[in-house]
């Protein structure tokens, strides 16, 4: 009797397998999007969620039209652990390779997250001729510069979000506002000891200096630093009025909490300040995160009306995942899928070289503005107005909410100073 039951179960199992396989076969062979992301970290899972949201929406609407045939997208995520300190970049590279060779990914979207890993992956991409659009965390200007320098070798790499230099420009514009409104001129820079943060700190120092701001100090903190007391005291003693923070490590919360407790009279203005980008930040710091400003790179990651699509994306994300868009990768990962779909449809094929050409001709109105790529460096074109290009977003935590304060074209509020600074 037991044997017979086993046999029946086995037959049913095979039947189900065939059913599943069969149902797939009817829908047209799926286009596989490989996503090498550091899924245990904010910049990994926000990208994953953005991508999956877009893929779901596209598939429900019928899929991608490849030369007359409708094919769905599927997402294959591999955890690269590359945002974890102590994990070698070779892990990320192995993950990318696995996606390309084992999982037969047609396109690579989203990652790797760390700039170092992304730079190292460029050679892999050119070796296998796979298109990649990075969307979450690769902020180093070196990325698009390398593509432009060796276009024929690295032409398969694209970046769909603003990079460090853009972020600095936006922040300087804000600083200029603050100078005009409140007379703040002294800037103290604190950066984490990683490629993009250090590079950004250096550039910021130069640009701020040239625009009439006084850089009162620059401190670089190794990843894993747990004590920022001395630096905060230096901020106070030099009379600095703005603290420019470039840290995605969790210890940044120590910095911000201490800032609040010590009532340091300077405004924390950060970028890639992962801790402060999440909606849970307020509760996590018991409100001590108030007045913190952070640059979330692209609109859509905080509520604004950049384009008609922005709030549609925002609400769809919140509905599907139960939490509002969290980090700087959410809207860009979402758009990467749509941009890719648009390029494939125009190229009519999945052939990498043809899709590269199609991507270079992209011109659609996305969640954060008009999306176009620079044909030489494959960097998305950034602008202050959503009608002209990709628009950034700077938000400030006010009263438990993330209020977008920049750019002016989409701002929902104004920058406020903490009470002990007036």
């Amino acid at each position, binding site marked *: 009797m037991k044997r017979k039951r086993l046999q029946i179960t086995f037959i049913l199992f095979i039947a189900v397998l065939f059913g599943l396989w069969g149902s797939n076969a009817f829908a047209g062979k799926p286009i596989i999007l490989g996503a090498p992301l550091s899924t245990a970290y904010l910049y990994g899972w926000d990208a994953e969620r953005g991508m999956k949201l877009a893929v779901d929406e596209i598939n429900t609407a019928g899929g991608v039209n490849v030369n007359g045939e409708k094919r769905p997208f599927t997402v294959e995520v591999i955890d690269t652990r590359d945002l974890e300190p*102590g994990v070698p970049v070779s892990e990320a590279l192995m993950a990318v390779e696995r996606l390309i060779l084992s999982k037969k990914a047609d396109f690579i979207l989203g990652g790797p997250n760390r700039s170092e890993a992304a730079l190292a992956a460029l050679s892999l991409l050119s070796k296998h001729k796979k298109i990649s659009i990075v969307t979450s965390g690769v902020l180093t200007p070196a990325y698009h510069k390398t593509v432009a320098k060796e276009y024929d070798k690295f032409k398969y790499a694209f970046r769909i979000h603003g990079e460090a230099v853009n972020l600095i420009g936006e922040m300087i514009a804000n600083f200029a506002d603050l100078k005009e409104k409140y007379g703040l001129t002294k800037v103290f820079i604190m950066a984490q000891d990683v490629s993009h943060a250090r590079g950004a700190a250096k550039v910021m120092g130069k640009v701020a200096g040239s625009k009439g701001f006084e850089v009162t100090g620059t401190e670089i903190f190794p990843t894993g630093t747990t004590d920022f007391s001395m630096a905060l*005291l230096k901020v106070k003693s030099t009379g600095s009025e703005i603290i420019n923070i470039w840290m995605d490590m969790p210890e940044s919360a120590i910095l911000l909490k201490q800032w609040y407790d010590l009532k340091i009279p300077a405004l924390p203005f950060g970028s890639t300040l992962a801790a402060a980008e999440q909606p849970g930040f307020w509760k996590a710091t018991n409100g001590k995160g108030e007045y913190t400003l952070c640059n979330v790179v692209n609109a859509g990651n905080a509520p604004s009306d950049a384009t008609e699509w922005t709030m549609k994306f925002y609400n769809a994300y919140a509905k599907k995942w139960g939490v509002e868009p969290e980090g700087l990768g959410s809207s860009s990962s979402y758009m990467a899928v749509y941009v890719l779909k648009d390029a494939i449809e125009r190229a009519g094929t999945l052939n990498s070289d043809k899709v590269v050409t199609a991507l270079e001709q992209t011109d659609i109105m996305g969640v954060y503005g008009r999306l176009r790529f620079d044909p030489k460096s494959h960097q998305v074109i950034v602008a202050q107005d959503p009608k002209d290009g990709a628009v950034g977003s700077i938000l400030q935590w006010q009263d438990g909410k993330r209020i977008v304060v920049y750019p002016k074209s989409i701002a929902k509020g104004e920058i406020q100073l903490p009470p002990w600074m007036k």
Partner: protein
Amino acid sequence: MEILVYGTINSVSLALMGLGFAMVYGISRVPNFAHGALYIVCGFVTWTLFHKIGLPYFISIILSLCVNGVLGILMYRFVLIRVRGMNISEIIASYAIGLAILEGFRFGGFRGMTYTLPVFMEGSLMIGDVPVDFHRLIMMVIGILLVAGLWVFTHHTRIGLALQGMAQDERAALMLGIDSDFMAMLAMGFGAVLAGVAATLILPLGNIVVESGYHVLIMSIAVCIVGGLGSWTGAFFAAFIIGYAQILTVVFIGSHFQMVVALLAIILTLILKPSGLFGQQKELEERV
């Protein structure tokens, strides 16, 4: 002035981290490489009890300290007791357990930066012209009290004296009827609780992330080596040396080099005085 204040605070926090490790090694000669994991366990358990279940803060702390103690005892009783005496295996076994716990947390969803604990008291006050926040002050006070308490405990209570006896000479202690395995179990429990206390005091300053586990482990080892493996007074003083060295580096050289200092301290100690400051294991210093 600020160097004095913040140097002390940094040192006390390092001492808190190192005490647990020093105690376990000193008494049972078992290097507990799961120290960092125990630190994080206490943090996450307190968070769960406080935020998810809704118990009052202090009850959550006491409960999670108990959980830590039990975890330490269980770890010794079921795993480490079988590899006692074989150095490599102890290190590997305890490290593997620590690794399993930490990565298990990460897998179980404890990722991201939103896991935090509230500070004991908000606000700050001025010592001289240096602003210090209350929680750091409380941490410093409790830390010093804890060390003093430990000293009293190990010198004036029966169990404490038994532990000290085991630390000094295990054979003699056995002859006097002190059960070495039971004492080692207690020592692990204590070490785990001390890790928990360190977590309770230090974690509210920032957030609870799995990476801190690895960081705490390295710092504890640094403190213990410089102080001499096996001596907890040594660990305390070593914490001060490393703590001040870090703060001085930040102020005079640059915060860039903070982490290098701690590791440099270990290497220098090993070259100059391998048994550490108060090391009782002079036989390790024997140069062959």
